[in-house]
């Protein structure tokens, strides 16, 4: 069971990095305190993992055959990648890092299911595209709705408050459902855990990440996002949550940041603003390339040293 530590470590790192992106808006808007937001995030992540995490577990498990050792190596490689890229302030995706780690193991063992990998890669490409479409459509529909409702100043404020609160919770739920497979999906395949154990332990590890070290990320990230007006920030969070949820149903863990970049672009297009700079596109491409590549290299090195291949 000691091998599970690598999965828990990856789940924790994921929680630290990504949970803030789901509830940070509520904290930055002073709607709820940091503690309450972290708790909301943790509870919703756990619920998402328990209720909607199974499909992702199946997909990651079917990428390649797993043993306890290979699952340990893949998760450790991904956790190291997330840690290093975060320290270097570079874009990172735990989902993509884990697939890189699994790919390394699969290449060494020659058991890779390239069809499933293809499905995963297509989903990665579709994440920002999905965010863009959902962001644009959500903005269009909700703005029309808001115009028809013609709420006065205080009612509008109140609606924003509560919608933000609910959508933050939904966003955390989607994160849990989409990303729990990263933490423990491989251990399920290796037979070290049952499905309910895998979703519970994975969910708890991501929730722990959100409860411990995400305060800084919360404030820096969402103080920037909230430079948008509250309605746009709300549409952004909803679009990200919907995108993650859809991919959770498809069963492919994806990057929350890349979904957010797509959604920002979609909202920008609807507002006739050019919100996506070349550097944002560069960040997407860098995220696509760096996280899996680095994790792949780590996993090959670790697997060789553990004589897995």
């Amino acid at each position, binding site marked *: 069971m000691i091998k599970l530590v690598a999965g828990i470590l990856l789940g924790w790192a994921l929680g630290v990095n990504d949970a803030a992106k789901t509830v940070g808006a509520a904290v930055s*808007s002073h709607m709820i305190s940091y503690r309450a937001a972290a708790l909301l995030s943790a509870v919703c992540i756990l619920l998402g993992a328990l209720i909607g995490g199974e499909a992702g577990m199946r997909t990651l498990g079917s990428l390649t055959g797993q043993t306890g050792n290979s699952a340990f190596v893949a998760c450790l490689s991904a956790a190291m990648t997330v840690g290093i890229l975060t320290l270097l302030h570079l874009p990172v995706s735990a989902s993509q890092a884990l697939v890189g780690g699994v790919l390394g193991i699969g290449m060494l063992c020659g058991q890779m299911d390239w069809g499933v990998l293809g499905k995963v890669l297509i989903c990665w490409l579709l994440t920002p595209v999905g965010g863009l479409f959902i962001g644009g459509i959500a903005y269009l529909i909700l703005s029309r709705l808001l115009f028809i409702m*013609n709420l*006065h*100043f*205080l009612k*509008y*404020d109140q609606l924003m*408050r509560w919608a933000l609160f609910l959508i933050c919770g939904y966003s955390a739920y989607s994160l849990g459902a989409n990303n729990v497979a990263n933490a423990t999906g491989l251990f399920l395949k290796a037979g070290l855990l049952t499905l309910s154990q895998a979703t519970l332990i994975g969910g708890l590890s991501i929730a722990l990440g959100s409860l411990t070290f995400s305060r800084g990320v919360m404030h820096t990230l969402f103080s920037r996002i909230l430079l948008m007006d509250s309605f746009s920030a709300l549409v952004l969070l909803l679009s990200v949550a919907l995108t993650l949820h859809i991919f959770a149903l498809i069963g492919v863990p994806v990057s929350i940041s890349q979904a957010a970049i797509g959604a920002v672009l979609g909202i920008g297009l609807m507002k006739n603003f050019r919100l996506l700079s070349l550097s944002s596109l560069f960040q997407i491409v860098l995220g696509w390339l760096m996280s899996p590549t680095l994790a792949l290299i780590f996993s090959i090195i670790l697997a060789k040293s553990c004589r897995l291949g």
Partner: protein
Amino acid sequence: MPIFFSKKHYLLEMIDSYLAKASACMDTFLSAFLAYLQDENCETLQPFVDQINQTEAEADDLRRKIELTLYEKALIPESRGDILGILESVDKIPNKAQSVILQIDTEYLHIPACFKEDFQQLAKVNFQTFGQVAGAVRSLFDNLKEVRKFTAEIGIKERASDAIERGLIRKIFSSSAPMGEKILLKELVIEMGNISDRAEDAADRLNIIAAKRLI
């Protein structure tokens, strides 16, 4: 929830009180100006000066109180910023009205009979812009789609004020009054016109606030 409701209700009451104070300030401005036009006696003006000073100070106190209340986390930061901005913007209108009255009081201005009608018109048009501003502010808390109707009216009044200003200044400088008097009167005309300019600034802000919420 009840805490949010009560805080917001309290805020609305305070904003209403503030608007009532500011309106009282504008009423005093018009009464003072019309009274001065009649007899050009600074003693007649004195009770009005005292009244406008007091009402303006009370309006300022209320505004500061509202600003402090806004920081009690009753609203999301965007709404808070918008209310702070609009209060600062609206407050400049009675401030300017007060400064016009003080200018007349301290400079013992003589307004020749041939200009009195134009001055009266200018005072009335500028006074009316505040009514539209107050209406637009109230619409924010009642019916956002109404805001634009009020702000459009402010635009019309501001243009009317500009036209009166230009005509009056031309008239002043083509008269036989001494140059010093002409310059003082021109300054007064410009200062009075600034009331509607400030109303227009507030209207621009109100339009943006409403547009953000109607997308």
